[in-house]
């Protein structure tokens, strides 16, 4: 029966190429946009190289201080000392790394200038993240204790600084801002969309200019807390908050009197949305309202369009419906036929969308807009799109199907 329905659907598609084009264009356009979007969101928030353990990590990004009147606030990253005292000491976490957020600097080779991003990290950074070492190895506690001037660089920086040669650069010298460092390792770089791990050059935090000695609570450092397993996240969070609660309130920081002090440890997505919105509720609702509206339009417009075309084409199939009804087919059977037909067309559109998405993702990855972009259609994205596909097919199929199957036999056969 199913093959019969699909055969009929195929014949109907071939009969009017123009309407087939409209239908498939609408479906594949919508699905392509949705799939590229989900794949980009997955790129931003999913667990990917080198933050493959993101699903069991908590991010400590900023400290927020507010005065008792809640009129002025002050927020930003923390000092190395503060994080060592309050985050590094966590007992429930598997590991804790402290590193700077993205800093930038310049290096010069001959008459060439290289803009680069730098990061000061501790040795645990290489355990919490999963960088792939192409050459050499990361710096360890020993290097840090000795204040060795060593660096880990990315393959991209290696290419720019040392040229395209394939020979090893371990032990070679890199000069940045008039200070010489010895290359100890080369890693595959991380995309700029992952600011906690993105950098061209990684220094141990005891290298010059890291400011890890700073005494106050604020500075340039952030932390990643790695839990043993995903279910431990809550425990780690609670322990961290109990540490933060030990800070005496109110206090004074560089002349700013604060009565409220907040340091959050959150999973990546919440942390990201938190910084984007910065707690302002009004803007949050407006922002999400607009996103929801755009999504609704994106999904709704092609759906309305499809329903519209389908409804207008009832009469084309009228004689077929009439004959089937005259031979005793119940409304349910007819409805199922049209629903299956619609799902079939939607999956056809889904297939086209999949190909289009693959092409667009390849284009984005190769365009160099985001260095090290690794957008992929993973299983999750594909399954979600397939589900969306189905909802979409039913949405644009049910209404016309219902109308079609309710036609009176005499009326249907008249034309």
């Amino acid at each position: 029966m199913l093959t019969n329905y699909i055969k009929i659907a195929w014949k109907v598609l071939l009969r009017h190429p123009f309407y087939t084009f409209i239908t498939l264009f609408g479906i594949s356009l919508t699905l392509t946009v949705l799939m590229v979007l989900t794949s980009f969101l997955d790129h931003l928030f999913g667990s990917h190289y080198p933050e493959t353990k993101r699903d069991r990590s908590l991010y400590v990004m900023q400290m927020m201080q507010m005065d008792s009147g809640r009129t002025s606030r002050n927020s930003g990253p923390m000092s190395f000392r503060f994080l060592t005292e309050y985050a590094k000491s966590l007992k429930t976490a598997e590991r804790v790394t402290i590193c700077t957020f993205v800093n930038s600097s310049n290096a010069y080779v001959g008459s060439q200038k290289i803009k680069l991003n730098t990061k000061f990290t501790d040795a645990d950074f290489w355990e919490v993240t999963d960088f792939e070492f192409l050459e050499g190895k990361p710096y360890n506690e020993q290097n840090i204790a000795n204040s060795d001037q060593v660096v880990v660089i990315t393959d991209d920086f290696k290419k720019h600084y040392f040229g395209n040669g394939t020979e090893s650069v371990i032990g070679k010298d890199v000069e940045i801002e008039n200070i010489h460092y010895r290359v100890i390792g080369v890693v595959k770089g991380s995309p700029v969309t992952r600011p906690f791990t993105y950098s061209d050059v990684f220094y141990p935090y005891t290298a010059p200019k890291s400011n890890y000695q700073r005494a106050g609570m604020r500075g340039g450092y952030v932390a990643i807390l790695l839990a043993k397993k995903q279910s431990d996240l809550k425990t780690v969070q609670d322990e961290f908050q109990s540490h933060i609660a030990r800070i005496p309130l109110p206090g004074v920081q560089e002349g700013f009197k604060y009565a409220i002090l907040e340091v959050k440890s959150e999973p990546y997505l919440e942390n990201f949305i938190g910084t984007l919105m910065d707690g302002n509720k009004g803007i949050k609702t407006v922002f999400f309202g607009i996103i929801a509206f755009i999504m609704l339009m994106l999904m709704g417009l092609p759906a309305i369009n499809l329903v519209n075309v389908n409804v207008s084409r009832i009469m084309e199939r009228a004689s077929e419906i009439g004959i089937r009804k005259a031979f005793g087919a119940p409304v349910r059977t007819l409805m199922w036929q049209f629903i299956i037909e619609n799902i079939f067309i939607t999956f056809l559109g889904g297939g086209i969308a999949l190909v289009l998405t693959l092409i667009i993702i390849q284009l984005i990855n190769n365009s160099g807009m985001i260095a090290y972009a690794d957008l992929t259609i993973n299983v999750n994205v594909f399954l979600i799109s397939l589900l969306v596909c189905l909802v979409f097919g039913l949405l644009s199929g049910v209404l016309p199907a219902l109308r079609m199957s309710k036609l009176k036999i005499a009326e249907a056969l008249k034309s």
Partner: protein
Amino acid sequence: MIRHLFKLIWNKKRAHSLLLVEIWASFLVLFGLSSLIVYNVRNYREPLGFEYQNAWAISLNSNQDTVEVAEKIERVLQQLRDQPEVEAASRMSSNFPFSQSSMNNGVEYNKKNVLADFFSTDEHFAKTMVIPVLEGRWYRSADSVGKYTPVVINRKLKEGLFGDEKPLGKVIGERFKVIGVVNTFKSKGEFMADKPALFELLDVKTRWNDLLMVRVKPGTDAVFEAKMVKAITTMVTGWSVEVDHLTDSRKTTHNMTLVPVIIFLIVSGFLLINVALGLFGVLNLSIAKRRGEIGLRRALGATGTGISEQFISEIWVLATFALLIGLLFAVQFPLMNVFDIQAGIYLTAIAISIVVIYGIVTLCALFPSRLAARIQPAVALHEE
């Protein structure tokens, strides 16, 4: 005639309601898109207010050094000025043009309070950035006598605080004395809205404001830059030095504005094509269904043009309905002053969207209506 058309549409309100929703939704999408474009184009047409070519921003960071920081910054600045490749150099706060950081504060005059971008700069800033001064002059270090700090404001802030009054010599915000007025200063690039801005003379003795703006001679390359960075780091050991070319920073800020607009443009472009195709298909089908009616009208003496006019006016009436509902939504934006954007921008966007919607609708109806005009009464009525 119009009443007749209303009746025709009302009789088929079921079938037309979907078309109505479709046109209404396309109008809203188009309204969003054109607001965004009109807003950015309007901003783009305002002059930038300074020259970014050959300007470099040098960020210094004293790190753990706390001894005589201000004096050291001044010494570095002095040494930069002595270089033959450097045309002008100036010291300012960290919110240099095209940077990500900004500082704003309220300024008060005569009970009027305006939120303005604050820039702390020295006396050479206008020369370094090539900012033309409209009224008065740029401040000099010697102006800083008494309890008032000399400031230069831009035209937007002048209009906000003074209206038609003469601003020169007036005291604003209790501690600033206006010395000069500049035209526009769009520190975040051409696509930024022209916002009120205030430049105050920086205190050379503070250790903040560690950014140096340098204008180099055209054609100066990275060799000089490397030499300069080396000279600075040997002079002040342990400090970090970072050089940004304003042309590069400008590109980054532009991309941040343009990329979302382009993505939105492509997606809504495809949406509208989709809608247009659908509309075309539906009209085509509905004309096929009304062959009998058309044949009868032709037989009673209606001309071909008359028939196609009828179909186009029908779709226009339908579009007008949809647009009226859409306007109810769109008008809320200028009325409620959403996103603090001028009402004029929203109104222009509404006008553009209306024209485009009518255009699309007409284009979609043109071919099917021609088809209808060509129907021969004898053939059509014979089928009946």
